[in-house]
């Protein structure tokens, strides 16, 4: 960043979801001109994702109760367009020393930046089960994108399975869209849901909305099962049904589509490439980039906002996006409203406390690992199954994740372990009798997502001060 000292480069925001939009608005309000890079063609992130082409549905139909927030954020970002540099359809694939490497429309661009806000969001957390790679089995997030952005559904008779608030939300959205929702299968026991009572006084709207979803679905004949085990998706060429156990009794349901997800996981690869220190998060059984209440990471000039540094939802993302931007301004010596800072941090603390209750209500079923048949695919990119991982760990005496990757290829493929990393860590921990925190995490490597080999031939002109 020394080259930028005389003439500060623009701040860079990665992600144009609720956190990125709020951060951008805050920086613009203070007179800065940020660059906003986002993979999607339009702003909104996953939760307020916009359709690829207009499909005749209004915001209410698309976002339900969250429509006002979605419309506000979309509008706010649109109004900022001449005050920032917005690069949609663009992937930041590497970060180092104040430079971001960006793939944009199949071409290469380097951005020099001064101050980096990572608002990289989250993706579905998956634990492999037999049949999870069958066509017709979608992640919950994928099921929602199909509905929200593409105006299509994943099947005509659909089972939703997993755990977490998204499970109920997506099932309800499908029901509202006129799809036959056969059942909602929750990995968490019903008894876990009593934790929600604790959350009722602080967040009555959210808790009651969840209860309303369940009630409406029950009225429409959707079956609910809690504490399910031994889940398997079945079918020859695509999913035809789902089998599971409830209280030791085997059950089977027919379906032609399934949505599956076990909560969310942070997309933290860019924080890793930026050199941020990570710490193990006991609640979510995952390593997360460290951040303080002011959203500063361990690296000066790098700030973390939204679900990318720990799952807390869209409202928290907006708050932490603004908080991160205020830290950036503060660190540049610009004036910051201290009362606003205090308010943001108080609100965030409340949401984080609520989140802890939510996670208790929808615990991650780590115990499923023990039941997994050896031929279950774990890493679908590299086609590595459970027994290959267990055998490799045993044969080579492996106790750590990066070594497991080296000898088994798990996490080496196109997704670089974004999908299978958590499951592989659970498997290695179980196989070696270690706590999950002891097996470590896969070191992030560029590119964050696959890059066309030919893209380097086309170098784009610079924005701002970009130069080598």
């Amino acid at each position, binding site marked *: 960043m020394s080259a930028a000292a005389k003439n500060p480069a623009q701040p860079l925001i990665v992600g144009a979801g609720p956190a990125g939009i709020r951060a951008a608005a805050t920086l613009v309000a203070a007179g800065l001109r940020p660059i906003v890079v986002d993979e999607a063609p339009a702003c909104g992130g996953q939760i307020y994702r916009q359709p690829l082409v207009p499909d005749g549905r209004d915001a209410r139909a698309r976002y339900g109760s969250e429509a006002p927030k979605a419309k506000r954020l979309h509008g706010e970002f649109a109004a900022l367009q001449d005050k920032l540099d917005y690069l949609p359809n663009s992937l930041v*694939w*590497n970060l*180092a*020393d104040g*430079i971001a*490497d960006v793939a944009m429309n199949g071409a*290469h661009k*380097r951005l020099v930046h001064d101050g980096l806000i990572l608002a990289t969001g989250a993706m579905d957390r998956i634990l492999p089960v037999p049949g999870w790679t069958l066509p017709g089995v979608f992640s919950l997030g994928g099921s929602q994108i199909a509905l929200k952005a593409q105006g299509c559904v994943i099947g005509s008779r659909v089972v939703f399975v997993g755990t977490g608030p998204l499970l109920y939300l997506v099932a309800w959205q499908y029901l509202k869209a006129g799809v036959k929702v056969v059942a909602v299968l929750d990995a968490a026991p019903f008894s876990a849901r009593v934790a929600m009572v604790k959350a009722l006084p602080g967040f009555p709207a959210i808790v009651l909305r969840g209860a309303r979803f369940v009630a409406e679905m029950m009225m429409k004949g959707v079956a609910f099962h809690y504490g399910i085990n031994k889940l398997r998706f079945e079918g020859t060429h695509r999913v035809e049904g789902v089998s599971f156990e409830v209280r030791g009794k085997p059950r089977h349901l027919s379906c032609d589509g399934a949505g599956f997800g076990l909560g969310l996981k942070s997309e933290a690869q860019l924080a890793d*490439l930026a*050199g*941020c*220190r*990570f710490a*193990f998060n006991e609640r979510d059984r995952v*390593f997360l980039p460290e951040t303080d209440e002011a959203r500063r990471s*361990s*690296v000066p000039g790098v700030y973390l906002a939204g679900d990318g540094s720990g799952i807390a939802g869209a409202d928290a993302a907006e708050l932490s996006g603004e908080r991160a931007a205020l830290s950036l301004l503060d660190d540049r010596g610009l004036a910051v409203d201290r009362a606003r800072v205090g308010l943001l941090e108080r609100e965030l603390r409340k949401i984080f406390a609520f989140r802890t209750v939510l996670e208790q209500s929808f615990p991650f079923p780590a115990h499923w690992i023990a039941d997994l048949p050896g031929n279950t695919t774990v890493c679908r990119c590299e086609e590595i199954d459970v027994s290959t991982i267990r055998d490799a760990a045993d*044969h*080579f*005496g*492996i*106790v*750590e994740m*990066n*070594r497991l990757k*080296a*000898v088994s290829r798990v996490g*080496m*493929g*196109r997704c*670089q372990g974004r999908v299978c990393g958590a499951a592989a860590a659970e498997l290695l921990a179980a196989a070696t009798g270690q706590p999950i925190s002891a097996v*470590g*995490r896969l*070191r992030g*490597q*560029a*590119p964050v997502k*696959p*890059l*066309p*080999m*030919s*893209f*380097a*031939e086309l170098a784009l002109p610079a924005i701002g001060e970009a130069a*080598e």
Partner: protein
Amino acid sequence: MKVDVAIIGGGLVGCSTALALRQKGLSVALLERGFCGAQASGTNYGGVRRQGRPTEQLPLAQRAHAVWPKLKQLIGIDGEFRRTGQLKLARNEAEMASLEAYARTAASTDLQLELIGSRALAERFPWVSRDVAFGASFSADDGQANPRLVSAGFAAAARRAGVAIFEQTPVLGVSREACGFLVEAQGKPAIRAMHLVNAAGAWAGPFADAFGEGVPLGRIYPSMIVTEPMKVFMTVNTGVEGGNVYARQVERGNCIIGGERGLARADDADFSRPTGSAVTRVMQRAVQLFPLLKGAHAIRFWSGTEGAMPDKNPVIGASRTTPDLIHAFGFSGAGFQIAPGVGEVIAELITTGETTTPIDAFSIDRFSVDAALGSGAGVFPQSLQSRGT
């Protein structure tokens, strides 16, 4: 703990030495600051080639050449070793002249090289761009292997053979005693050994310093790219004269492409990453040289930390100051192929005091560097910090 031999470093050199010593019946303890095979030995390109090596390395390379086809017997896996041949391309007349000169030098050795003109090149290797490649030198008996598996395989085989392997165990101090060596490692009881092998790769400097043998050991970081699996087209391990791009394709279909250098990480100098600018340049070169790569995706870049000497030759052999101490480090980005031979040579040196393979060119005293410490005993505060996750 008392052993015949203590080895510092769990890379290919350390582990192949440990295995060879066990096979001769000696007791061995191996100390590794991180995990065996996690650095240069496991992160390199995977070229198994003699072609292009300086002639003084060829006898050692030839010895290793005999080990590679026997990996399955030796370590229980073949490490994906394939004798595919290695093709070195010239992109202009000067590069071709350089290949011809090397072939003349190698003619008196066991390395068989075949010079190929542009027409034959196009016929035999049609996936190489005719616009870029001018001619080539082909070494039919060289090949490639999977470093991740070979390095882990040697470590696992050494462990099974009875080597006491201590991973995540940085050595804090080594000293010569009246009889043998005292090795003090983090979190482990003291180890006493009759012989000591310094095979600590990029971390070997302080262990040489401790015995009054300062060396100009630097670090280099390879810069590697791997593509998604493609239909197999690249039948041989391929490089260019000068080395700024090289590539091979594994049976699964992924192309592994190297060239230029990475950088140490700012947050952990023992680990490194490719730079965005270097990988984009190498991707550009690779696509020009191998047009079939044009439609492929690169899915991952990586690097590793390698010890490097100014003359690009390793240090291999007995200490000049301290009896029963042997150094083997500084392989300068070209250690993978010769490492299994180095293990045999060191085991010979320890058991018989001599080796049948000429290694004089790799003597530690070829550099006139003032010993940094030279006290005959050393403690290394810089290695005290263990690696975080």
